[in-house]
């Protein structure tokens, strides 16, 4: 901002004594103009609008009396993560007609990648629902989970899986379907927060982990060219769609 000297705004901001402000204004034309603007706004300060109606107090009071116990933030986080885990468990059982784990990678690699996904689920739940800005943790956790999935890929592409696009679209579709319920739960919970794109992205990524976990265990294709576009890309799509949906849904509480 090329605005000349702005010292008077800082003086006003830290509530400097009037004499100090006067002293500065005497020798600074820039600041005299800032100060005049600041003072001009004062013409709005005098006619205060009428105060709020007592009905507002009554309504908020009634809400407090009806719900005397506050809901701790971690309950929402647990609920959202629990929904994703439950759907993942049911999903694995649903598609497990030919065996629960068809991923042919070594068991340790499968377990480590699953652990990375669970860690990402915990981090995204925390970032989405904990008070304060914690979204910075989301990207590294999601990136670590994605890297773990790619690193744990077996490299196998069994013939019975079918052609590249057919198999890939089947996986992407399954992932989107398994994400619907956790996303709906997270969306309902997130309406209790003021809209925040980082929070919504975190919640969307968390919801998408349900489908990602099912595919990680059940998909027999372990090539990066399959996991990248048909497992990881739909995950991002879920997060982006979730954020757009959250933007459009009404908010129940505007606290962060």
């Amino acid at each position, binding site marked *: 901002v090329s605005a000349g000297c702005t010292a008077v705004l800082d003086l006003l901001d830290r509530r400097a004594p009037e004499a100090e402000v006067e002293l500065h204004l005497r020798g600074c034309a820039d600041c005299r103009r800032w100060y005049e603007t600041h003072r001009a706004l004062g013409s*709005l300060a005098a006619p205060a609008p009428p105060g709020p109606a007592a*009905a507002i107090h009554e309504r*908020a009071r009634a809400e407090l009396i009806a719900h005397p*116990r506050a809901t701790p933030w971690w309950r929402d986080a647990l609920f959202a993560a629990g929904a994703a885990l439950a759907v993942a468990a049911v999903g694995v059982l649903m598609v497990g007609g030919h065996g629960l784990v068809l991923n042919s990678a070594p068991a340790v690699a499968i377990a480590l990648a699953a652990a990375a996904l669970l860690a990402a689920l915990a981090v995204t739940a925390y970032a989405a629902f904990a008070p304060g800005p914690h979204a910075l943790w989301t990207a590294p956790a999601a990136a670590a989970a994605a890297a773990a999935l790619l690193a744990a890929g077996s490299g196998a592409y069994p013939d019975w899986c079918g052609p590249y696009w057919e198999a890939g679209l089947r996986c992407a579709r399954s992932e989107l379907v398994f994400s619907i319920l956790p996303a709906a739960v997270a969306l309902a919970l997130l309406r209790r927060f003021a809209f925040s794109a980082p929070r919504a992205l975190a919640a969307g990524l968390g919801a998408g982990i349900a489908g990602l976990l099912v595919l990680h265990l059940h998909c027999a294709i372990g090539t990066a060219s399959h996991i990248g576009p048909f497992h990881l890309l739909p995950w991002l799509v879920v997060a982006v769609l979730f954020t757009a949906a959250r933007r459009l849904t009404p908010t129940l509480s505007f606290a962060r």
Partner: protein
Amino acid sequence: LSRKHSATERRIYPVEGPDEQQPDEMLMDRFCEGDVRAFDVLFARYARPVHEFLSRFAGRGAADDLTQTTFLSMVRARGRFRRGDAVKPWLFAIAANAGRDHLRRRGRDDRARGAERDARSAPAAVPDPSAELDVRAALARLPDPERAVIVLHRFHDLTFEEIAAALGKSAVAVRVRAFRAYRRLRAWLGGDRP
């Protein structure tokens, strides 16, 4: 809420007594535990400032509904209040979020018309009503994020640090917004180039 309130509905719970002297943080602790009396004191302390903020930020027509939304949000989200945080920036953050959401849904053009209407219907308690109209119109022309900063800084005595905490921005970003906004206002009210 938009219906008219009768005189009997304008009852406010009395808050005289030792509770009134308690600091915000102590009252907030009690309120978070479900203490209605502590809420009454906080409401008495902040209802008017919040209402005034919302009148200036989002227009008088919306201030009642948004004040209600703010205090309902405060009640519903008190489980997320971090013990030890300052109450005033937290509450104004809720009000600012509610105001922003309202403005986003209503649209800027409609808001500008509402602000002008508000200005015309303002009580003539100022020496020069046309000056007030100019100031109000200039305030309404500011981009929403800048107007929030100016209203909180000029009329509600929040420091840049407190506004940053309320809006979830850095103090530097808030200072830049404030300088930009004051510069625009200076141009519109004083004839400078913006």
